[in-house]
């Protein structure tokens, strides 16, 4: 492991320690403030009428009897403005991309079951739902398609008669030639399962249009408040100066809350139509399963060639992603296919690559960003290929991976998709994971059980590279009209020497207030407890794209670090003038100014801040009052985080039950800011990954009804299903101000491949389809 030097190694450093999280106390005593907790006087509640059909023309919407009900205050449909004239259109300049217009409230046609059609406003949610029942809609059913790889019955959008919204081919080298020379050619069809983010807190918003000054305030559980403000201004024809978006405490997001939804726009529009009245909508779980974004409904047709020594020679793939009814705003239908094709070969060296990816619209809820974006599925596909090649070549599944890893000597490694890998530490991760897993002991036990009646055991391995903290070059792929490479941070020392930070990051439980405070505390040289971080308010922080792509520690953290250093610099300069001592002899540590070599500090930060704000007469010539700085940071490229997971399980062959025995994960997080938070991110992501591997599955029937519409049928694992985990770290610093690599998503990348590989190892059954249920295992054994 690499030694990392901090800004001031002698100081009371905060970075690197599991300091107590700033958020926890208020959460633990029940004083967190979520959107649902906001109770403004005169609030009115919205319930949406949602389509019961997956695909239908709307012939008429009759709201007359609902309007007659005295408890209904207002009803809005998409047939009238402002709703009718606005739609959500995700833009991309990719040549084959076809835009879709997602209505705020569907009025001519519905394209998925659960699509909002009308909004009813009442004094409480109960009455609003009563009102919804009084609306009568006459539908004309259209043929329905919920599978992206069956022949389309009826186009969803007239612009895409084949329902294909995007196609892109990644090509490098000569695949056919390489396959012809291969010793072994593997062909597989692999299918991953449709899932949803299911944060504990579903979506929620309160919108208030203030008639006095024409401002709109929108409290929203969004992961991306600045993007939301930007979009709302455009969609509602308002100036950004008059919109404030506030994301208060948010109870989980996982990507689901990184999209702007029709419901968000609807309640803002309603607020403008009902000036002075706070308009509130809190999504319930049934709505969430039905209409929040879904993900990972993919099929991979893969052909791979290997030489006799296990070298991967060529990879050919055809990847189809079910993107649902609309191209998700603002990320586009490209979000999953482009990621799947861009990173399919993972941590392995590869020259010959030919991969066609496509986004296919179906009558299902739109697919959007979900923790790990596509890669839990693409890693599953790639690792299935590696496992099978090993079996066919008589190699161990470990050796074949070693053979193909991108290594430190290859860095920077240009992948066949032109992404640049800056890590290369996969083998080190694998070594450490094997050590923690104790493979020899496992193999001995596996051997021992083979002759007995005891349940067979197997182990599986997943090696992956997570592209984190994408800068402007790395985020260019989807060709959207914005590049998510940068964030801003403002750091300000208050007149009493305490520090307030306005950061562009957002937090859905990841502890960003803590992480940013640690960075700033060390950056300036003050105590962690003296730093307060404010996030999630577009009127306070200058700019931030928000939470997605494991970007915030890298980019938001980088901006915090840069701003803190500028402030520190000014403090030292001012101290130097006041003390008449050369700046190079001064140290700022623990909120005090020390002269190098002395035991007592000369000045406190509070004394300096007082001069900066209150005693301009003592400021040197040309120095402005105040101690504040705002800096942006953009890493240009990204930081690849290497990761390896190894797990073992036993199978009860009489029921197909899978019991996980051991789970090891080793990730390279670069420099770890807060070990407890990093471990929490990894453990939570693995748990979510195990959910996807074994339980979570959104299933539509042939008519496009969601069969798994409650948590009785959409199974999220509980602590009873999640094993203890052994988490190991490597710390190879990345090339950014803090040396950090993102760890928010990596954990989700492993479990599909680990479980599938381990079942194959235990039973000799090839897993082609997720999730791996006991029923599927049992059927496989018959």
């Amino acid at each position, binding site marked *: 492991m690499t030694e990392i030097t901090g800004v001031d190694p002698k100081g009371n450093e905060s970075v690197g320690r599991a300091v107590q999280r700033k958020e926890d106390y208020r959460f633990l005593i029940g004083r967190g403030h979520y959107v649902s907790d906001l109770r403004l006087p005169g609030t009115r509640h919205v319930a949406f009428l949602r389509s019961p059909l997956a695909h239908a023309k709307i012939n008429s919407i009759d709201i007359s009897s609902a309007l007659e009900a005295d408890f209904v205050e207002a009803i809005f449909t998409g047939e009238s403005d402002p709703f009718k004239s606005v739609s959500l259109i995700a833009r991309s300049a990719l040549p084959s991309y076809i835009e879709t217009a997602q209505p705020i409230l569907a009025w001519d046609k519905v394209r998925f079951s659960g699509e909002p059609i009308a909004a009813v406003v009442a004094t409480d*949610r*109960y009455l609003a*739902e*009563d009102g919804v*029942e009084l609306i009568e809609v006459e539908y004309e059913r259209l043929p329905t398609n919920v599978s992206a790889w069956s022949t389309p019955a009826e186009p969803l959008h007239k612009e895409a008669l084949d329902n294909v919204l995007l196609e892109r081919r990644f090509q490098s080298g000569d695949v056919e030639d390489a396959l012809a020379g291969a010793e072994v050619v593997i062909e597989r069809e692999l299918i991953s399962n449709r899932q949803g983010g299911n944060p504990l807190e579903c979506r929620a918003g309160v919108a208030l249009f203030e008639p006095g000054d024409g401002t709109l305030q929108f409290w929203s559980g969004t992961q991306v408040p600045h993007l939301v403000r930007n979009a709302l201004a455009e969609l509602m024809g308002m100036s950004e100066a008059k919109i404030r978006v506030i994301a208060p405490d948010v109870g989980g997001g996982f990507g689901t809350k990184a999209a702007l939804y029709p419901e968000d726009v609807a309640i803002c529009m309603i607020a403008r139509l009902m000036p002075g009245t706070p308009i509130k909508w809190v999504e*319930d*779980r*049934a*709505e969430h399963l039905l209409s929040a974004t879904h993900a990972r409904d993919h099929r991979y047709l893969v052909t791979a060639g290997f030489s006799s020594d296990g070298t991967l020679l060529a990879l050919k793939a055809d990847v189809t992603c079910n993107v649902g009814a609309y191209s998700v705003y603002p990320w586009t239908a490209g979000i999953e296919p482009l990621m799947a094709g861009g990173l399919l070969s993972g941590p392995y060296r590869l020259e010959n690559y030919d991969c066609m990816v496509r986004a296919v619209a179906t009558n299902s809820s739109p697919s959007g960003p979900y923790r790990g974006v596509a890669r839990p599925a693409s890693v599953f596909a790639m690792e299935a290929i590696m496992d099978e090649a090993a079996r066919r070549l008589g190699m161990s599944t470990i050796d074949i991976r070693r053979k193909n890893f991108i290594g430190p000597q290859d860095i920077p490694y240009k992948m066949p998709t032109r992404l640049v890998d800056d890590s290369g530490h996969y083998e080190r991760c694998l070594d450490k994971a094997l050590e923690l897993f104790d493979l020899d002991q496992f193999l001995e036990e596996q051997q021992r059980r083979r002759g007995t009646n005891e349940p067979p055991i197997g182990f599986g391995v997943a090696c992956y590279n997570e592209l984190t903290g994408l800068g402007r070059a790395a985020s260019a792929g989807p060709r959207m009209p914005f590049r998510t490479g940068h964030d801003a941070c403002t750091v300000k020392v208050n007149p009493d020497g305490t520090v307030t930070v306005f950061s562009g990051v957002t937090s859905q439980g990841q502890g960003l207030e803590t992480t940013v405070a640690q960075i700033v505390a060390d950056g300036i040289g003050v105590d962690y407890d003296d730093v307060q971080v404010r996030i999630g308010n577009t009127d306070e922080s200058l700019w931030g794209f928000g939470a997605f792509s494991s970007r915030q520690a890298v980019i938001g953290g980088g901006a915090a670090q840069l701003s803190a250093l500028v402030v520190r610099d000014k403090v030292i300069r001012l101290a130097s003038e006041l003390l008449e001592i050369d700046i190079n002899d001064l140290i700022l540590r623990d909120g005090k100014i020390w002269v190098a070599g002395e035991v007592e500090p000369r000045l406190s930060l509070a004394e300096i801040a007082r001069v900066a704000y209150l005693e301009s007469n003592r400021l040197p010539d040309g120095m402005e009052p105040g101690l504040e700085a705002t800096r942006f940071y953009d890493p240009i490229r990204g930081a690849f985080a290497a990761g390896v997971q190894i797990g073992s399980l036993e199978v009860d062959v*009489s*029921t*197909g*039950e899978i019991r996980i025995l051991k789970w090891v994960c080793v990730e390279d997080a670069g420099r770890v800011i807060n070990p407890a938070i990093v471990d929490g991110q990894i453990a939570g992501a693995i748990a979510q990954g195990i959910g996807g591997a074994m*339980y979570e*599955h959104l*299933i539509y029937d042939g008519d496009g009804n969601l*069969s*798994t519409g*409650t948590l*009785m*049928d959409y*199974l999220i*694992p*509980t602590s*009873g*299903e999640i094993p203890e985990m052994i988490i190991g770290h490597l710390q190879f610093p990345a090339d950014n101000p803090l040396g950090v690599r993102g760890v928010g998503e990596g954990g989700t990348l492993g479990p599909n491949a680990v479980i599938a590989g381990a079942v194959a190892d235990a039973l000799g059954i090839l897993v082609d389809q997720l999730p791996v*249920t*006991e*029923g599927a295992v*049992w*059927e496989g054994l*018959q």
Partner: protein
Amino acid sequence: MKPAPFDYVVAASPREAVQYLADVEDASAKIIAGGQSLMPLLALRLARPSLLVDINRIPGLETIERISETTIRIGTLVRHRMLCAQTNSPLLHEAARWIGHSAIRTRGTIGGSLAHADPAAELPIVAVATGMVIEVMGPSTQRTVDAQDFFIGTLENSLADDEMIVSVISPLPERWGFAEYTRRHGDFGLVTVAAAEVQGEVKIAVGGVGSKPVRMLESEGLVNDSVTLSGQLIDQAARAAAASVEPNGDFHGSARYRIGLVEELVRRSLRQLGSGQADSEVDWS
């Protein structure tokens, strides 16, 4: 996901509760006990009673009493967690442990579970396997119904609209076995099997394979006709059970898989019955 409007009354006695039921026109009143099945139905607007009659404050319905050497009476408001805690019936203790999670077991009641008649629920299966007798009251009637006749179909029981369960008489089996397979900790079982020997006769009831708990008559015959419960006989009974069920498949498990589970779980429950587990100490975990 909010209930449609309803009125609400608190009943002070069983008599008053059933009178409320009888007095409501169009028979649209419902009793609410623990609310663990009814509340979700209300929230999804799948049930739309005009009146809810709350029986939770009726005194005397939350007790378990021993009425003979071999039987206990369980009040309708006895919560699942009290079944877990009691020591009279190790079978009920074991079965109740499998119901949902602790929050649900703290509120849910035995009467509610039986009345709700979910074909995968543990207590109806145990009721059929042990031959419980359900004590029912109406505005002017009092009667008992054998568990076997109580369940009519999925979420359907044989109570009249103005009747309620007051208590159940539960025979204490000499020997028993219980086996369940759930996808996650706390889920309803994909298949659940209870086998109980009461007064020398073994009954086997299976849940998850039909619209109500299903008796495995052929397997029971094999077991009851034989003096000893050999491994071979258990296998035979398990296969007979599997051959007799016709479950529906769904995305939690195909029909074929459920049949496979029936075989395995009947085997396990009979093994447990044969090992005389019922006399062993209660596992409190």
